[in-house]
């Protein structure tokens, strides 16, 4: 029972707002198209309703009277056929027009939503990415968009035309015979109830099926990725046993889900047929018994055809219900993403190219000069230029990712231009958090961070980040050539600059060894390169950007010692003359720092040079002598 309840709770929630908002997007962009589409659907629906009425007139007004004549004249009949040909041609044309227009409308809308979503995603703060799994974010672009696209292109026009047809057919049916119509309506009620009870059940099993399918796929993914470990431990048989268990569970859910969705159509179809037969018997009885005036064979024949036309849209709508619910759930998720709070940027201090004359005056320049300055527009309107030097200060900084959980307490430190400052400490001590604050991936709660004496809150985020280089433990390379990846640091870099940067990073040698050199295509985060080579590329990427301040976050920890030497040399070259913050896991990397900060539980507990800290015989000393583990 409990299990079932949770299943139902998982059923997607859809607010009326989602539907309204989606319609608004479609309507506001394609108003003219939609008017044409609507007119065409109306025409096409009317034509499709007129088809069975045509049979009636054919039989009642032409065939039956002509049968009684000695020399039947076919002129009238031919005329009717011709008229109908014209009507049908119009219907076909209308349906041609609207189905083509719907393609443009649905694909255009989907493109718009997808682009909006991505543009929004680029504006979201890092916090969003840290609190959502990649798979979750990805599924917005795959599952949610796909179901929504199918709904707009298939279900929406079906829904409109079904409703229109229903109304048209219902009216014609009433005109033909209200008695039979009432009977049909009673029957339709039964059909709708059946649909409701079946889709309700299949819906909850369907959710269960998706959940177990996720479980099975997750298990397969985890185990196949660890397949080599499975082999080493002779774990195959146990892996098979576990697999069988969840695979059987999936089977049970799948059978149930499919069972209900499979029987829906045959049941509706045959209920439709049953209704048809009953109408025929009832109609025939009424006609023969003469209880109802005007009920001719032709009327019955066309009424029967109308019954079919009436059942068709009901069946259509029934089969679309699940689809529409799923698509709306997807749209709700998409709108949630689009409605996320974007990263705000109210900084007004910008970064400009500058010339510095002999007297130290700073003059803004349009062109690249190799010097930069902060352009500070004071509130009274005066302009001030401050040379970009890379002087970073933190003063009594407190910070927590969540409001009630402070992670950094009272951090105060400074790095003068060209100095190297290191952070060491256990996982969770707050090393990475400090660097997250300097480039404003997260904003601080209390205290101040200054860059060249300017509060970083006043600096435009983009410019602040341009002035900071970042090399992370997880290198993220992008699909494209090696050259393009290095250019990521500076889009207008020349080939010479790229090679120069690669040389600084010690990456030039291995790149030159590749058959295609700098034009080697990288895919899947550069999976064809070794971890060390990837790291060298990410250093080169940073080198071409040439920032005055750099942050190296565990940049060498997943590299073997031999390659590390290479990477280390590359970094050392890059670090020259820059302000550098280093987070390292191997103490050898931080030894020559100007100051080393030992962090514990979000506080700086020791600070000083390597020699000073060793003398203190505190935490650092213990770490260094191997008495403690760095993890």
């Amino acid at each position, binding site marked *: 029972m409990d299990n079932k309840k949770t299943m139902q709770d998982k059923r997607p929630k859809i607010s009326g707002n989602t539907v309204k908002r989606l319609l608004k997007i479609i309507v506001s962009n394609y108003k003219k198209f939609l008017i044409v589409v609507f007119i065409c659907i109306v025409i096409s629906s009317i034509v499709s309703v007129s088809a069975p009425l045509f049979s009636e007139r054919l039989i009642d007004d032409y065939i039956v009277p002509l049968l009684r004549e000695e020399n039947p004249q076919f002129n009238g009949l031919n005329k009717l056929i011709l008229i109908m040909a014209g009507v049908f041609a119009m219907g076909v044309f209308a349906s041609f027009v609207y189905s083509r227009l719907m393609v443009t409308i649905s694909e255009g809308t989907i493109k718009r939503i997808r682009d909006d979503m991505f543009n929004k995603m680029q504006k979201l703060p890092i916090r969003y990415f840290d609190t959502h799994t990649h798979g979750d974010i990805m599924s917005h672009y795959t599952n949610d968009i796909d179901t929504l696209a199918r709904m707009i292109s298939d279900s929406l026009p079906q829904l409109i035309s079904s409703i229109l047809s229903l109304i048209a057919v219902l009216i014609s049916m009433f005109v033909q015979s209200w008695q039979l119509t009432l009977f049909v309506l009673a029957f339709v009620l039964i059909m709708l109830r059946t649909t409701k009870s079946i889709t309700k059940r299949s819906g909850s099993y369907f959710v269960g099926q998706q959940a177990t399918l996720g479980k099975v796929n997750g298990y397969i993914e985890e185990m196949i990725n660890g397949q080599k470990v499975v082999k080493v431990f002779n774990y195959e048989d146990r892996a098979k046993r576990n697999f069988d268990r969840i695979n059987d569970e999936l089977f049970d859910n799948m059978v149930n889900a499919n069972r209900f969705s499979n029987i829906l159509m045959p049941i509706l179809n045959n209920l439709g047929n049953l209704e048809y037969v009953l109408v025929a018997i009832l109609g025939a*009885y009424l006609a023969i018994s003469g209880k109802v005036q005007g009920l001719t064979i032709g009327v019955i024949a066309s009424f029967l055809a109308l019954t079919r036309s009436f059942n068709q849209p009901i069946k259509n709508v029934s089969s679309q219900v699940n689809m529409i619910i799923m698509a709306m759930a997807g749209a709700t998720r998409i709108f949630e993403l689009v409605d996320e709070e974007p990263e705000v940027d109210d900084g007004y201090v910008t970064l400009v190219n500058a010339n510095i004359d002999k007297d130290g005056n700073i003059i803004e320049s349009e062109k690249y000069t190799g010097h930069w300055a902060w352009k500070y527009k004071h509130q009274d309107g005066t302009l001030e230029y401050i040379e970009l030097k890379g002087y970073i200060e933190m003063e009594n900084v407190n910070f927590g990712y969540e409001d009630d959980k402070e992670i950094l307490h009272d951090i105060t430190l400074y790095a003068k231009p060209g100095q190297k400052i290191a952070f060491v400490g256990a996982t969770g001590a707050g090393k990475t958090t400090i660097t997250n604050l300097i480039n404003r991936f997260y904003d601080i709660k209390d205290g101040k961070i200054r860059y060249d004496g300017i509060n970083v809150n006043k600096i435009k985020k983009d410019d602040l980040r341009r002035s900071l280089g970042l090399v992370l433990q997880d290198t993220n390379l992008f699909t494209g050539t090696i050259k393009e990846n290095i250019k990521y640091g500076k889009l207008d870099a020349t080939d010479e600059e790229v090679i120069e940067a690669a040389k600084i990073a010690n990456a030039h040698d291995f790149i030159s060894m590749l058959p295609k050199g700098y034009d080697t295509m990288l895919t899947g985060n550069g999976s064809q390169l070794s971890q060390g080579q990837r790291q060298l590329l990410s250093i080169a990427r940073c080198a071409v950007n040439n920032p005055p301040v750099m942050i190296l976050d565990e940049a060498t920890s997943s590299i073997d010692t031999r390659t590390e030497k290479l990477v280390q040399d590359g970094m050392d070259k890059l670090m020259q003359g820059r302000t550098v913050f280093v987070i390292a896991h191997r103490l050898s990397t931080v030894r020559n720092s100007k100051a080393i900060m030992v962090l514990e539980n979000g506080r700086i507990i020791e600070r000083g040079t390597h020699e000073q800290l060793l003398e203190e015989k505190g935490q650092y000393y213990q770490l260094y002598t191997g008495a403690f583990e760095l993890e």
Partner: protein
Amino acid sequence: MIKKLAKSIREYKKETILTPLSVAVEVVLEVIVPYLMAELIDKGVYEGSMDNIVKIGIELIVFTVLSLIFGALSGLFAAKASSGFAKNLRKDLYYKVQTFSFANIDKFSTSSIVTRLTTDVTNVQNAFQMIIRIAIRAPLMLIFSLVMALKINIKMSLIFLILIPIVGAILFILSRIAMPIFEKVFKKYDNLNNVVEENTSGIRVVKSFVLEEEEKEKFAEASQEIFELFTKGDKIVALNSPIMQFAMYSGMLLISWIGARLIITSNMTELTTGELTSLITYAIQILFSVMMLTMISVMLTISMSSAKRIVEVLDEEPSIKNCNNPVKKVKDGSIEYKNVAFSYIGKKNKEVLKNINFTINSGETVGIIGGTGVGKSSLVNLIPRLYDVTEGELLVGGVNVKKYDIEQLREAVSCVLQKNVLFSGTIKENLRWGNEDATDEELVEACKLAQADGFISEFPDKYDTYIEQGGTNVSGGQKQRICIARALLKKPKILILDDSTSAVDTKTDKLIRDAFNKKIPDTTKIIIAQRISSVEECDKIIVMKQGKIDAIGNHNELMKSNEIYKEVYESQTQQSE
């Protein structure tokens, strides 16, 4: 290929056969219904006979109810058959992968195996369900409706014979034009997803280089391409419905026109009004069947590539298998390499190991050192037969490894891989990979040896602490120590640590080695390491260079005679002193 896949039906054969059978019955009944309807109108209504109406009416009701029952049955059977088929297929694939050697896995790559077991199976399952239901239904419907139409009036049926091939051909051609466009779209879709994927995982890089705008452009470009292709493809598909309507309407007009004349001129002898109505019904049924058939052909073509990928896995021969009459027991932990050469499959002439000759006595501790890519891991992977030697011989306990029962060999040789993995589950569950029946005491003992008991005891849930997939909630050093404990639980004769203490600090590293020497002196221990300090005290140290052994000796010997060793030693001691 189909035969191969059909093997997975097994215990669901009954349902697999019953589904199309009930579909067939349902179709026959459904086709008879319009015929009886004609009778009802002609013999009942037209002749004004209430008896006939009741008689035919009851027949009709019986048929419809039967059709409903068989329709529902076919749905139920199909659900069971297709879900069961998918279950077995998934199982067969998974079992097959379990027999794969490392070389087989490398050939496919893990991500590709995962796709084959998930997405491809779902595709084939859908195709299977479609074949046993709709692919049977559509042609049957077509044939039966045609037969009934012929029965009513042969001349009139000629209209169908003309209409069917024309409509079928047009729809088929349209689908073939649209299909390559959609195939292209799916590839472009991968592009787009790739951009999103790279942006979610690399968002810090994007933001720190302030390239949001460029990424937006990249995305917009991919998005535009998809939009254009999709619109192009969908516009072709959108022709289907007007074409169908055109065929339906023109069929209806033709039948009505010719039919009406026939009724009148023959005075209802050759064709009746009732029959005219049923002919129109059959026309619609036939046209829908034709449309179904083209749809099925498209869907089947799409799932064909999935089926192919699945069969590839099923057809793959495991490259390492037991020999006949395998040796069950591994005598001791001695190892001997005799002229061993090795290359990964498909890389002939690119030997990773060449000319390897050396002996390890049972119970010795051996260190292996050398740069990345010199073949250290390849060298030790040969011992538990994770790969087979290309040339030469490898003896364990005096017997060629190829002669052992693989399971027994791997029980005796415990290997802590460089890329090691913990699985989602408690620490206990992870440890029991080494020995399913290990008692709690044995677990603790192994963890003490691996210096893992200390930190595990500090976790609030101790040994019941839940490890996230991939072991992301423990640190690198902790993960490595749990992996070592897991390997120890096998109580192996040979223990291989492939760079397995790189994230452990030097002091703990030493404690682990000391514990090994004290507690498991009889086990042969092979340690691959980057740090000299990890191998310094070994009985033997093997220095490797470009797939060859550069030197073998103890620390003192190598310091005197080997350049590489000396260089590595000096660079490391200088760095940390």
